[in-house]
Every structure is written in C-alpha cells, then in structure tokens.
C-alpha cells in the first residue's frame, strides 16, 4: 500500500523538510531575538548555525540510490 510515509514519497518529504528547516527559523527570528531569556539573539544563532546543521540532516535523510558497481546504498 502506498502511503505518504512510504519510500516513494521520501523525496517529497525531504523537500518539505528543507522548506521547514529554512523558512521557520527565518520567520521566527524576530521574536526569538527579542526573547530576553537568552543573553544573546537566539534567532540569529538559529539561522547562522542550526539552519545549516538542519540542512545537513535533511541531506542525510534523502533516500540513497544504489551503486551499480558495488550494489551498496
């Protein structure tokens, strides 16, 4: 049975994940920077460090193709 959680939608999920990882921190940066709980601007820290790390996680989650030479994934 094909479901949205199945492997054939993995690429679509990766695109949605990438959009979330990029857009949400940028949109939320202003309130996060204004949050006085942290002594530094949390929103800027998220965009500068956590967004790139999130992009790496998305890249690692993209389904891997088979290598025709070694048959590894």
């Amino acid at each position, binding site marked *: 049975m094909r479901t949205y959680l199945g*492997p*054939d939608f*993995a*690429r679509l999920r*990766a*695109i949605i994940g*990438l959009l979330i990882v*990029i*857009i949400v921190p*940028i*949109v939320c*940066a*202003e309130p996060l*920077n204004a949050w006085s709980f*942290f*002594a*530094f*601007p949390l*929103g*800027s*820290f998220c*965009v*500068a*460090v956590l*967004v*790139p*790390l999130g*992009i*790496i996680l*998305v*890249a*690692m989650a*993209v*389904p*891997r*193709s*088979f*290598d*025709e*030479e070694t048959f*590894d*994934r």
Partner: protein
Amino acid sequence: MSQKLPFTMRVPMQFGIALVAIMVLCLIASGLSQLGIGSPGIVIFFVICLFGLALLSARMNLPPSPVSSGVVASIEALSAFGLFGIVGAVYAYGHDGLAVLVGLVGGLCLSLIVVAPRFSMIASRSLPDFLCLRLTSEAVRFVMLAIMAVTTVLFLAAQIAAASLIASQGLGMASVVGVLIGVFGVLFLTSPAWQQRTSGATVLAIFATVGGLFATYWLISTKTGIILPQLGYGGLYRDVSAAEMQLGSVQSFADPTAGLGTLGTLALVACLALGAAVMPHSIMRVSTSGSPAKTEQALRVAIVFLVLLATTLPSIAVLGRAEFLKQFASGEGSLFLRDLQSSVRAIVDVCGTGSASAREVCSTNGFESGFSVNALTAKPEGVFFGIASLANAPDWMLGLLSMVGLLVVILASTGASIALASAFNSRLPKTEARRRCWLTSAGVVFVAATLVVATGVDVINLGAWTYSLVAASLFCPVVLSLWWNGMSAKGALAGMIGGFLVTATYIAGSQWGGDFASGTGDEWSWLGVPSMMAGVFGIIVSFILSLVVSAFTEKPATDRMTIFQETDKTRFIANLE
C-alpha cells in the same frame, strides 16, 4: 603511499598534511615579519607559495573519488561570492545577511534532492546536451548555451573582481595586478596538461578549506577565547549591541527587520538556493563521478564541507563589527576615521563621499568633533580583508587570507569556465574538445576580465545577479524536464527566455534606470526589491510560462522519461526490501 592506506584514513591524512603545511607557512611568514618584512612582502610570500603548491599538486596522483569531487564542489559552491558575500552581507545587513549562507547551502541540498542525481542517470556531458536529448530540440540547446555564456561571464567577473580586491587590499598593489593573477591562474588550471591531472583541483581545494578554517578559528579563538567560531556569536553580538547603544546607532545589528526584512531575506534565500541548485558547474562537478549514488555521495560531502566553512564566516563579520564599533566608541575610532586609513576606507564610506579626504568630509558635513556612527555606510565587498586589520591580526593572517581567497577564486573560475567550455565543445572528439575547451575558457575569462576593468562592478552584486539569472532562467525548465512527462521544448524555451529577460531587465532597471546611469533617481523599484534579488520576478514568470506553454504544445516522445521511471521503480522496490 597515501593510496595504500584505507579510504577512511586517507582523507583525514590529506587534511592533516595540509594543516601542518599551512602552519609551517604561517610560522615562516611570522619569522619573515620579525625580520622586518612588511605586510605586502608577507602576502607576496603566500602568493608565491600558492603557485608552488599548484605546481606540486599537479605532480601528485590521488585517485578520483566522490569525496574529492565533493571537496572541490564545496569550494566552487562557496566561490568568491560566498567568501566575500557572507562576511560582507552580515557586516552590512546584520542578521539578514545570513540569507547568503542559507541560500548557498540550501541550494546544494535542493540539488541533491531534485537535480544532480537524476541528471547523472543520463550520461550527458552537459546540461544543454541533457535538455536537447530529453526534449528533442536543438533550439533548447542553443538558448541554454547562450544563457550559460552570459551567466558564466558574470560569475567569472565576480571572481576576478574578488582577485582585484585581494591585490588592492592584500598586496597593496593596483587592482589590475589581481585581475592578471586571476586570469593567469585560470589559464593555468584550464590548460590541457593540468586537466589531465585530476588530483590538482582536489589538493588546492583541501588547502583552501583547511586554510580558511585555520584563519577563522585562529581569529575568533584569540579574540573571544572560544575555540569554535560558531559558538562565539553570543558574546560578540552582546559586544555589538552594547557599542550600538553607547553610540546611539539607529540601526540594530541583530534586528531582523532592520536590514532586508523577513520577506526580503526569504526572497534572497530563494534566488540563491534555486540558482545554486542548477548552477551548471556545480552539477557537472558532482556528476562526473558517473552514477546517481556517487553523485549523491559527492553532494553530501560538498554540503558538509560548505557548512563547515560557511558557518565560520558570519562570526568573522560579527567580530569585525564588534571591533569596529568598540574602537569607534573608545575614541580610537575617531582617530582612525580622521586619518581614514585604507583598511577603514575599504569597509566604510562616510556620508557616501567615496574617496574624499577626511578633512574634506569634516568641513563639508560639519563634523568638527568627529563622525557619528550613523554617518557611516558599510562597503560589504571590502569587509573580508578589512577585518584582519581591524582585529589587529598579524601580517601572516593577511597573507593566509589572500592565499585562501585566491585559491577559492581560481578554483571557482576554473570550474565555471570548464563547464561552459565542455558544453560548447561536447560534440567534438575528446582530444580536439580538450584543446578547444582551453581556447573557449581563455576567451570567456578575457571577456570577464575586461568587464571588471571597464565597469568596476563589485563582487557581491555580480555574484547575486548570476544566481538570480540562473535561478530565473534554468531552474524551472531543468527541474520540470527531469520530473514531468508533460514538459515540451517550447515550454522550456518560453520559461528560459521569459525568466532571463524579466530578470535581466529588472537588474538593469533597478541598478541604472532608463538613462543607464546609477544614482540619478530614475532607478526602478518593484515592491522595493533590490537588484540582487531580481530573480524572484523571473522565477515566477519562468514557472508560469513553462507550465502554460507546455500544456498547449506538443510533448516529446515519453520514452525519454523511461530511464527515470525505471530507476525510480528499482529504487522503490529496493527500499521496500
């Protein structure tokens, strides 16, 4: 010897050797500095070492692998635009400048998800050849070659403009010396003899990565006491905020609404990410591995290295901003602004007075007691080198930054010119193609160098325009051709031409206006979008035209998509197992 080691040991060893070599170079440069050799002499020492390194690397014989392709791809994706642009944009726009970093990294990830691995399933030698095969149209190939030629010239011009900055700020020489160094470097690296040595670019890319990381880690750790630059933000931002408050600055560095605004930031991210995803030289670099699996591996490596390098750059910008404001607030600022030393003039402009002397600026604007911080405007392209002077870094740091800058410039220029030359000469026999490639590369580099010398356009605008034009003209046609059965040749042509024309027209209109002269007040401003984000209009136009025209025109034979569908089916079954 290194080839006998297992792969997991080989890569760390290559990076370790590069780190030791760079530390030795810095020690020698430090010794030369103690002997009384000045800053230009130290930078020249590093540049000579760079050419020695290039000659040495051509003699090495490292086996090609997805990892080496990935390391080179990360440097090519960063390019001079990333190196100067991330630092300059964060310094100038504060928080919103981070859009450059997010856009470039996000673009590589987007390429991994929807472009490069699928492109490598068809053994095409270039993107135009792929579209020609997929859509059975020679016209598509010619139009795409024309767009690639324009965008490659702009991309190369950005790199050469960066080389001229390195010459003027690092070497203290005329900008044209940097242009000549850049052109010579590209001609050397695109020569047939060098191209037969696949390991040369890898060695240079490893040195660029290690050198860049070493310089940023050293600067941040000595100034803040924190080893990881990524964790130094908090303290540096606090310093900036405190100095801004003390100086009564009207612009807050950490305020996301003060620079480009949230929508402007998202627009810039979109232009850069979509452009980076289909940037022809990046796709060609990772696709040379030969299979979708190896292409994906190369892209993952490229993303990791790009993140490693690029996330350290904003901390340098924040450090520079903090140092500048601190010195300004403590009174030293008024001194160095009065003198307007070259290092400071490279970073800021006072009341838009360009090269006017300090006394002229003071008498014109009535600044008898010194400048207000609000009278200063940042010059983003000059920040990368200016920070070394602001932070009172030793001379060898300026030399190391120059070497890293030149390595990035030369590698990115070589990748772009080779991608264009390969696309132009893809139908020639291999030996003939190699010779013609060099001639084509030389021609493109000379055109780009002439553009830089004649117009003097800066590296950040040129880079941003390139990404905008590529995103607007190529992203939709290429991605739809890869994933949609219904894409037609006429749809692709309409999307490419429409997106390109809208973006190019808006860049010209918003930069120069109807009279083709900047600063005369007739420049366009649609919805307040600056020229560096001109791609947002073109992307929308390209998407609509590609879909609508394809819907009403004849589609190519669907068997061209069979290879994609078969591979998808295999992957789906394999994932289930």
